[in-house]
């Protein structure tokens, strides 16, 4: 069963075709990864799914219902689509805790008047959210030591982790991660890979990510879709995708493996 199904999606900016007839599916409760060279259209695809770009053609079905362009980003968030950004998009003026609490925004109800008065309903709701954030997210992602710090003072790796925490506070069904380990050192990458696997297993959340780190992609993905020049070349399990000649061509250029080997090692051929 697929929780997200993209069919024949096309998006162009003027003459530039960012996506052409893109079709693929995200099976429920998997880690699905979109890979492809720079400029292949991966982030554009994310922006279509979260509602920032309006594709000219094609459909996006989420849990069986179509996400038409009339469903704006805030509504999609309320439906359970959460995401992080390639270049971190945290609220720099706030503490880690407030950033994460913002993730729970759609699950809270306090209006302006209740907030002004605070005591009573607004406070009760705030404390419930605080408890949930502390117990389920801050402990889980091991960021309890930084909860009071302004996010601007944190390292890059920790900021990425806080952004993940904020997305989790949205209680998502599909979590979209745009390059979750870019720019991280090895230890930070391993932590992040562990979190992603735990999110899928313990929380039952479907993860859709864009990532360039092939080692990690092949290790933790259940399903991979390969995008090149706005088109899906292939999709399938990691082992199959790795062997696909089209994929190798997209990554290594227009030559087959044997000729590449010959170029790299001319003596070997003579021998």
């Amino acid at each position, binding site marked *: 069963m697929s929780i997200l199904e993209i069919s024949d999606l096309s998006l162009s900016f003027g003459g530039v075709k960012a996506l052409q007839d893109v079709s693929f599916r995200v099976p429920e409760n998997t880690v699905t990864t979109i890979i492809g060279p720079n400029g292949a259209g991966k982030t554009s695809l994310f922006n279509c799914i979260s509602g920032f770009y309006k594709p000219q053609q094609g459909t996006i079905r989420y849990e069986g219902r179509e996400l038409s362009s009339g469903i*704006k980003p805030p509504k999609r968030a309320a439906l359970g689509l959460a995401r992080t950004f390639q270049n971190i998009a*945290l609220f720099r003026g706030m503490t880690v805790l*407030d950033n994460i609490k*913002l993730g729970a925004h*759609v699950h809270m109800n306090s209006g302006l008047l209740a907030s*002004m*008065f*605070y005591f009573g309903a607004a406070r009760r709701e705030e404390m419930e959210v*605080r408890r949930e954030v502390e117990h389920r997210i801050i402990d889980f992602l091991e960021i309890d030591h930084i909860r009071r710090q302004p996010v601007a003072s944190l390292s890059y790796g920790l900021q990425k982790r806080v952004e993940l925490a904020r997305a989790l506070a949205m209680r998502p069904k599909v979590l979209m991660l745009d390059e979750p380990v870019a720019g991280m050192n090895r230890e930070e990458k391993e932590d992040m890979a562990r979190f992603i696997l735990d999110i899928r297993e313990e929380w039952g959340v479907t993860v859709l990510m864009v990532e360039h780190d092939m080692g990690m992609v092949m290790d933790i993905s259940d399903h991979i879709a390969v995008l090149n020049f706005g088109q899906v070349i292939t999709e399938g399990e990691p082992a199959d995708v790795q062997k696909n000649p089209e994929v190798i061509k997209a990554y290594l250029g227009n030559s087959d493996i044997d000729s590449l080997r010959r170029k790299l090692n001319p003596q070997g051929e003579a021998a």
Partner: protein
Amino acid sequence: MRIGDAKQTYEADEAIWTSNTQKLWFGLLLLILLLFPFMADSYLLYLGCLVGIAVISTTGLNILTGFTGLISLGQAGFMGVGAYTVAWLSLNTGLPFPVTLLLAGLMAAAVGILVGLPSLRVKGLYLAIATLAASVFLHFIFAEWESVTGGMGGLSLEPAHLFGWTFQSDFRMYFIIVPLAVLMVFAARNVLRTRVGRAFIAIRDRDISAEILGINLLRYKLMSFALSSFYAGVAGGLFAYFYRVVTPESFPLSMSIFYLAAVIVGGMGNLLGGILGAAFMTLVPEALKLLTAALTPFYPNAPVFMSPMLEIIFGALIVGFLIFEPHGLAEIWHRIRRFFRLWPFRN
């Protein structure tokens, strides 16, 4: 001094005052505010009332500009709406002042929502110009809609009244203005530490991110405009009761700039900063006048020399603050607090 600050519950951790020392200092402040009118002469009392009104309006503008990131030059116009509402209601109905002030706030909030409508499309300086246009338009209405506003001559009104009390003197007005200012600052503090306030700050810091979290930008921007102009409307209403005359010239454009300057000098996005900024902007010109008076016995020409200088000195002080204290007066306060946090056990 504050040491060993461990909390057992989330309620205690999220309280406004997290230590007894803070509660003590705040109690002391309330006591001083309560005793002030009994000690102060009429001039100081007058200034106290002015600062109270300025604090309410600055807090409102701080919510909009400091916390939501929407620059507005319409604050004086919104205050005007509140003042005219109070004046008209007190002339044409017998409503007591709490009701007229509330209606003044609501009326200003409604106008604020209208003025805020372009904010979804225009940002930054463009929004400032849009609000500037709105304030010019409001000024035009104040001056020309004679049947309601009394035209250029304006409206004079009776003192505020409630249960047979009339609030004619500055002394009595103080007891309306200052408690209201304290309450409204607290209401703002509460908004800013809960869901709605976080949404405001999110819009200021990164609006695309806010949208992805499910925050409806238009709704929250308009809410911020409404809240901010509600504060302005109440401040304008108090202004009307305080001077008991309202004319179009009571709310010039320079007043909007005054409040924007108060927010910036005090510290954008900091409620305490707004309060300090309001006090600074109100009191420094007065202090400079006092200085002139003090100099006159020694230099008989001082008034001639000083009166044109006052504006320049005032301007230079503001520029100086922007250069040397870009985070505003609130930052000075935080520095003092940090110093005393572990005092006397430093290092």
